[in-house]
């Protein structure tokens, strides 16, 4: 094996490279850094190049999006005109940033795109003399460039790795990381991911000198002094054979020369870990290969197919064109064509264009805006003026937003090949869409304009939540599913039923809270019929929630019975669903038995919303059980705010009801002047 034979030289080269400096282009000292410009054509072509990451074949554009999100915690960052050669500050998005990182790593290392949420992480290092003093002058939550962080890079990595080692040894509980430890570990990941990507195309830029390696030079035309990676790859089977022959005949000098030559190329090609750029030449294999793996296989005797060599050559041509200051349009298109041809030959390109369309279209962003406008129009219509025009306009916009919302969900289903809900992120999209749709149906039945207003509001809130979740999670929202979840039948039945149940329960609660606040604030006090109608909506949506919650929960039990051998295991997620069923049934029985009326039912619906929040998000915070797959930092705070708000509604409603009752009793008491009992 090459790896075994070259152990000593690889170790030396890795050591040389482990400083992690993104070399290639150094930023001019003292002056403003020139900024690379990428034409739309180049960006579009390269965004469509298929790669495989985390087990999924996706466009390079998607990889760039989540790469930037992980480091920057947002999809754009500001490039300052003070630091860069720009007439004014400008925002840089994922694709230009990724191209800078791949082709101009020196410039990319100057971008302030590393979000450090708490300066304390770096201040601590500063006090230890391991971070630059400038850190102290920055805001508590601020963005830094790789170049800013580079002096403290080794110290950050060492500290984070100490935490990880302690956790691995069981001396620290990963669930109870301190904020400092959490930030350190995240910053370590960001730095390593940047370094990985910034050196990811070293092989495409490099030239490998043949001087001192006559055994290698003999394989190339006479007079060749240096060769490209593609040429090394083409001759790799012969280079490998020559190395084995030299080793067999104990020709140490020739063997060392060949080891050094192939080893350097192998090292350059091995930086972009975890991202497969080349479809495997063997049809039955599924894992895409990096350049280093191609070289390793070739050196072991497997000739590289012409299509793969052409793709390697296309990347090199693009790197050359960019280095020469060209626009690189033709070269970028050549990369795309060759990569697409290889992927299409395996039937693995078909969803790339659809995914690009999905991200280009941004259906959820547009739907969110439409929902908000629709809500504003409907709210204005309550004022009375122009309501004849505003209300239909609100309805049209809500329908349009819902159509976009549904289109986004449908596109995701087609891309992933799964029913609409299989991740926590997708629950938000689906639940908010169902909520909006239910509101429209209710409005169609009763025309009270309450559901009409709540529909776009819920849709917008849901999509805002989904967007925030994506920013907090910072992971591909279309991941591969773990083994037990990889079943479309149960995803389409149990998960959808439960999600519809959540949606209806939250909607019931929204109507209930509208009822409580309306009563407490005295809005349309005389409209008894209106409040009675609203009370019926609380009841109806609660009943709707009950059907889906009960059926969904039992279907979950049937699934668990098929997967794990038990119908019910008192797992936290199961318990959350059970609590929703129990509470909903209790609400309906309390109403039926006459223990509560519309106001009481509304109060109970507030508790129902709290239970849904616990089941949907809260159980993940417990980090126990079989369904604990959705732990997200930051959810705890949001959940706390939600519980606080709901508690306030309960307290306000309870106080109002108590006062009403006391006033009624006082009025009914003998001698109060009120009506006789």
């Amino acid at each position, binding site marked *: 094996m090459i790896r075994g034979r070259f152990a000593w030289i690889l170790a030396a080269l890795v050591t040389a490279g482990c400083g992690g400096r993104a070399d290639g282009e150094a930023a001019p000292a003292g002056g403003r850094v020139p900024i690379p410009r990428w034409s739309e054509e180049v960006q579009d072509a390269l965004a469509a190049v298929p790669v495989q990451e985390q087990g999924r074949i996706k466009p390079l554009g998607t990889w760039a999006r989540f790469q930037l999100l992980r480091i920057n915690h947002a999809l754009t960052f500001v490039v300052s005109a003070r630091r860069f050669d720009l007439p004014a500050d400008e925002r840089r998005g994922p694709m230009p940033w990724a191209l800078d990182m791949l082709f101009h790593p020196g410039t990319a290392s100057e971008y302030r795109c590393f979000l450090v949420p708490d300066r304390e992480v770096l201040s601590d290092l500063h006090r230890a003399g391991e971070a630059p003093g400038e850190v102290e002058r920055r805001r508590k939550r601020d963005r830094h460039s790789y170049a800013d962080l580079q002096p403290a890079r080794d110290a950050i990595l060492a500290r984070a790795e100490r935490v990880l080692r302690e956790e691995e040894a069981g001396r620290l509980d990963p669930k109870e990381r301190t904020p400092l430890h959490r930030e350190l570990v995240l910053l370590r990941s960001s730095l390593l991911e940047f370094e990985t990507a910034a050196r990811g195309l070293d092989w495409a830029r490099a030239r490998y000198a043949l001087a001192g390696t006559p055994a290698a030079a003999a394989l190339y035309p006479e007079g060749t002094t240096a060769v490209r990676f593609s040429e090394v790859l083409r001759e790799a089977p012969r280079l490998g054979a020559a190395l084995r022959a030299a080793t067999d005949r104990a020709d140490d000098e020739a063997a060392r020369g060949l080891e050094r030559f192939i080893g350097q190329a192998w090292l350059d090609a091995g930086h972009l870990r975890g991202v497969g750029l080349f479809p495997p030449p063997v049809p039955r294999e599924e894992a895409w290969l990096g350049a280093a793996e191609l070289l390793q296989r070739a050196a072991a005797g497997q000739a590289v197919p012409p299509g793969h060599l052409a793709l390697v050559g296309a990347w090199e041509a693009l790197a050359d064109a960019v280095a020469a200051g060209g626009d690189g349009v033709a070269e970028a298109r050549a990369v795309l064509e060759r990569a697409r041809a290889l992927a299409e030959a395996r039937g693995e390109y078909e969803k790339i264009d659809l995914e690009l369309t999905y991200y280009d279209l941004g259906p959820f962003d547009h739907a969110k805006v439409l929902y908000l406008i629709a809500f504003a129009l409907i709210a204005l219509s309550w004022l009375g003026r122009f309501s004849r025009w505003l209300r239909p306009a609100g309805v049209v916009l809500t329908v349009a937003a819902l159509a976009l919302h549904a289109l986004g969900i449908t596109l995701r289903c087609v891309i992933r090949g799964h029913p609409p809900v299989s991740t926590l992120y997708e629950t938000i999209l689906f639940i908010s869409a169902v909520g909006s749709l239910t509101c429209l149906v209710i409005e169609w039945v009763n025309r009270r304009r309450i559901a009409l207003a709540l529909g776009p509001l819920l849709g917008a809130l849901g999509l805002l939540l989904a967007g925030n979740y994506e920013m907090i999670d910072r992971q591909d929202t279309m991941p591969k599913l773990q083994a037990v979840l990889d079943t479309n039948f149960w995803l389409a039945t149990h998960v959808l039923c439960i999600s519809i149940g959540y949606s209806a329960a939250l909607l019931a609660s929204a109507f209930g809270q509208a009822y409580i606040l309306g009563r407490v604030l005295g809005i349309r006090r005389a409209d008894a019929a209106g409040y009675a109608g609203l009370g019926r909506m609380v009841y109806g949506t609660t009943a709707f929630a009950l059907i889906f919650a009960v*059926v969904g929960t039992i279907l979950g039990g049937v699934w668990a019975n098929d997967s794990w*051998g038990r119908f019910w295991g*008192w797992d936290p997620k199961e318990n959350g669903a059970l609590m929703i069923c129990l509470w909903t049934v209790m609400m309906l029985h309390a109403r039926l038995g006459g223990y509560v009326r519309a106001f009481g039912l509304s109060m109970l619906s507030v508790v129902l919303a709290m239970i849904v929040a616990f089941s949907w998000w809260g159980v993940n915070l417990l980090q126990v059980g079989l369904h604990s797959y959705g732990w997200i930092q930051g959810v705890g705070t949001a959940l706390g705010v939600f519980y606080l708000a709901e508690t306030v509604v309960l307290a306000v409603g309870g106080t109002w009801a108590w006062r009403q009752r006391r006033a009624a009793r006082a009025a009914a008491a003998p001698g109060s002047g009120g009506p006789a009992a």
Partner: protein
Amino acid sequence: MSDVPAPTLTAAGRAGPAAPPARAPGPADLLRRVVDVLGSFGLACVILALLTVLTLAGTLAQTHKSLFDVQEEYFESLFVLAEFGPLRVPLPGAYLLLVLLALNLVVGGLVRIRKRLATVGVLVVHAGMLALLGGGLVEYLASDRGSLRLYEGETGAVFQSGELWDLVVEEVAPDGQARAWVVPVEEIAGAGPGRLRSLRLAGLDPGLQVGDYVRNAEVVPVFAPEAGAHGAPDPHGPHGAPARPTGYRVRRLDPHPVSAEQNVPALRVLVAAGEGLQEGVLWGNQAFPWEVRTGEAALRLDLRRREFELPFAIRLEEFVKEDHPGTRLPRRFSSYVTKVEGRVETRIHITMNEPLRHEGYTLYQSGWGPQSEREPPWPYSVFSVVRNPADRVPAWACLVLAVGLLFHFLLKLVNYARAEARRSPARRAGAP
């Protein structure tokens, strides 16, 4: 429960028919009142609210207790002292609440409910709920569960419980004939630390005493006190060489906070051998049974996980684990097994969501190992094995419930839509 005739209120000052002359309540009145309460909406609401609170408490308790313990404490008990942070709140256990709920369902939801078209759906739902509760009861009382671990090429017909243990006593006669007695640990768990109790096993001569039962323990060596300086036990002999322990003692550990399967019990046993008593410690992880000579015979005592026998055998032919390409995220676990029944062998594929069901037993793909290696040269596969007579009840109950709920609420929805249409023709016309 739905549409039960509302009780007539006759308290002073409230509307109601004229009260008949007062008479002393008889047993029939008392029974009627009990039935009224049992079938009431009020009781249903109280039970459902308590079940919700209990479920919440049982969920929160899982952060610091194993699921097995939480199940026993909260969901298989009559009463529980529920923990809400620092607070301890006495609550009825789920067992009691579910029995009450079943009574409430039967009395209020099936017997006393008005039978008419509007309540057909409710009746069906209540019947489905009862079936579900009945299935749960059957599972609780009559199911066995455990796991079976097989290496490739290995055959097995016995599965072991993860949490339940047995004390196994075996008497081996001089001619090699052996008799065995199996005592569930639950029967001797009352003999906790500092307590001893006699154990009588039919047909076994030597008297046995068991005690100092500890649910989770480790066994540590004991060294002679004089071996160390300052009277402290010293695990090292002269010149730092390891000293020989003079005995072993049980060190009590807290129950495992996450998995009850990790608990390893220990027990002190005294055997009347000849004129004296022989004392020994049994520990779940000991490699061999403890053997005592009792006259001519030998007595072997062992603590081991409860075993159940399958009516057929399973041979693991091949275990396959597939990851998503380029990752270590598992995509599929599969076991290719052969089911052996006498001379009949059947090849079967068991994978996630596709268990083997046969003879009332179900085998699920639940694990594999050793997980320290990506592609272990000698992999083993772990199957969860369950015998549950009510295995398919939940699926049927789900169907019944869905039909009942849909029928009932669709009826309500139609009535609601009609009423809305009658109530607000102006709104329907779109007037502001």
